[in-house]
């Protein structure tokens, strides 16, 4: 079984985003960029399934700028077998899902594992949309994935706790934080990744129109919360709580 893992190049998890003064977006110039953390978890899960002998090949895919090559090289260094880069800027989840649906057609994977959301636009849509477009089942927000034969059992993190669904493959899985702990790429593997195959495509190669449907009119800073007061001890805190009516 082949597994496709879409990955996105985003602002690094540890960088605090700054809104541009002209309100046109978030300033990404000279900012550290990395693989979306949820996508790292997706790559890891695919690799573990290959190591268990469930999967035979792991293909990393990115739809993004030229520099998304670096993100794909990271996936290859972690252990993915080959990569496909579809060069396009600022494609919305619907457009990404349409391209991925075409890639699924070509590659015929048993599973597509994606991060549940990207930490830049926080949309949380691509996996579900891909499942809809291909008419395949979806296991979103996964904390456990078990493949047996032509079904995959996915334990999902839902509001009240956990829920388990059984899906017929090919299926789409989106990862939550506790699915696994992604590995670091070793230096020899980083070297080896440089010679792994990376194909370059464009949305036109797949006949997909990626014209955005949403227009960002402006981006602003959220309302700032200012620090309040510090109290000296528990007695003072209790007094404050009583003053506010929180405690009787």
């Amino acid at each position, binding site marked *: 079984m082949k597994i496709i893992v879409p990955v996105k190049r985003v602002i690094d998890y540890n960088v*605090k*985003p700054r809104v541009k003064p002209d309100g046109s977006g*978030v300033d990404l110039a000279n900012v550290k960029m990395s693989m979306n953390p949820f996508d790292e978890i997706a790559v890891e899960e695919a690799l573990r399934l290959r190591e268990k002998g469930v999967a035979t090949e792991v293909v990393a895919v990115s739809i993004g700028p030229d520099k998304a090559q670096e993100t794909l090289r990271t996936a290859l260094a972690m252990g993915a077998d080959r990569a496909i880069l579809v060069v396009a800027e600022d494609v919305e*989840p*619907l457009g990404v899902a349409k391209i991925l649906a075409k890639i699924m057609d070509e590659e015929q994977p048993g599973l597509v594992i994606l991060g*549940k*959301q990207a*930490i830049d636009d*926080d949309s*949380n*849509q*691509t996996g*579900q*949309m*891909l499942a*809809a*477009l291909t*008419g395949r*089942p*979806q296991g*979103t927000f996964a*904390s456990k994935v078990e493949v047996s034969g032509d079904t995959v059992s996915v334990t999902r*993190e839902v*509001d*009240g*706790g*956990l*829920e*388990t*669904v*059984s*899906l*017929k493959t090919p299926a789409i899985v989106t990862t*939550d*934080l*506790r699915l696994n702990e992604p590995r670091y790429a070793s230096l020899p593997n980083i070297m080896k990744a440089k010679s792994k195959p990376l194909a370059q495509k464009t949305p036109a190669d797949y006949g997909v129109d990626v014209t*955005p*449907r*949403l*227009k*960002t*009119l402006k*981006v602003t*800073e*959220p309302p700032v*919360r200012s*620090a*309040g*007061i*510090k*109290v000296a*001890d*528990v007695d*003072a*805190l*209790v007094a404050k*709580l009583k003053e*506010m009516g*929180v*405690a009787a």
Partner: protein
Amino acid sequence: MSVLVFVEHDNASVKDATLAAVTAAGKLGEVHALVAGSGCGAVAQEAAKIAGVTKVHVADDAAYANQLAENVAPLIASLADHHDAFVFPATSHGKNIAPRVAALLDVMQISDILSVESADTFTRPIYAGNAIATVQSSDARKVITVRGTAFAKAETTGGSATIEPVTGKGDAGISSFIGSEIAKQERPELTSAKIIVSGGRALKDSATFSEVILPLADKLGAGVGASRAAVDAGYVPNDYQVGQTGKIVAPEVYIAVGISGAIQHLAGMKDSKIIIAINKDEDAPIFQVADIGLVADLFTAVPELVGKL
């Protein structure tokens, strides 16, 4: 314009998150509701009483019992001829189903809206709430998920909607529900609690978390939350997590105990009315957003606080 709100329920009663979605939908047009479930007649009756709802569509079918996206999304998409917008609460159910509906309708979804600026323009948080984007949709139909803390809850009485049965294709035959482990919470649910007491990694382990946090929560009648670090360390189950990727909460009072205040955590609670922080590190970022801070060792301060309340 008529707007269809997806009712979140457990086949017995309407979940609170639906009410904020009804309020958001009311800003767009006439509000209809969809109850998809199995043996969900009581839910439909309840939904019909929500203020502002004029019509309730009920799809009562075993295939919809657990609201599997594969079965429910085509049902919702089949109602597109009569609705211009589809509004879902941004809960785990809503986030699971809405994009599947959007793609079936060839619509780019607008996730997690904070406000309705006009019929096609909305604000939504990006970058974990570190920026707010105003976006305008060019799609003829809108598919929207609503952040529950950003809209007032619609009244649960006063409505007298008509109830109309609808049928869909039922089971798509590609997925099945195996089971769930839903924690029985005797405490208020996080997304609707008036007071929340949250613990962080400083709580050491599961037993200590319970010993320190629960008495305070009990004393205040509060819901219990946790930081991602505490959840990852296994002190409490995943559904306690407050933050960018966990639950977004906005209670009257949020008490953060031993939580340093990573931006991902702040993203989930900074809209709380009053934030109280107890942390022994006076430089912890949580104090930058706290209305009241107490720099103290939580292992002595919290029991003392419980004793004096």
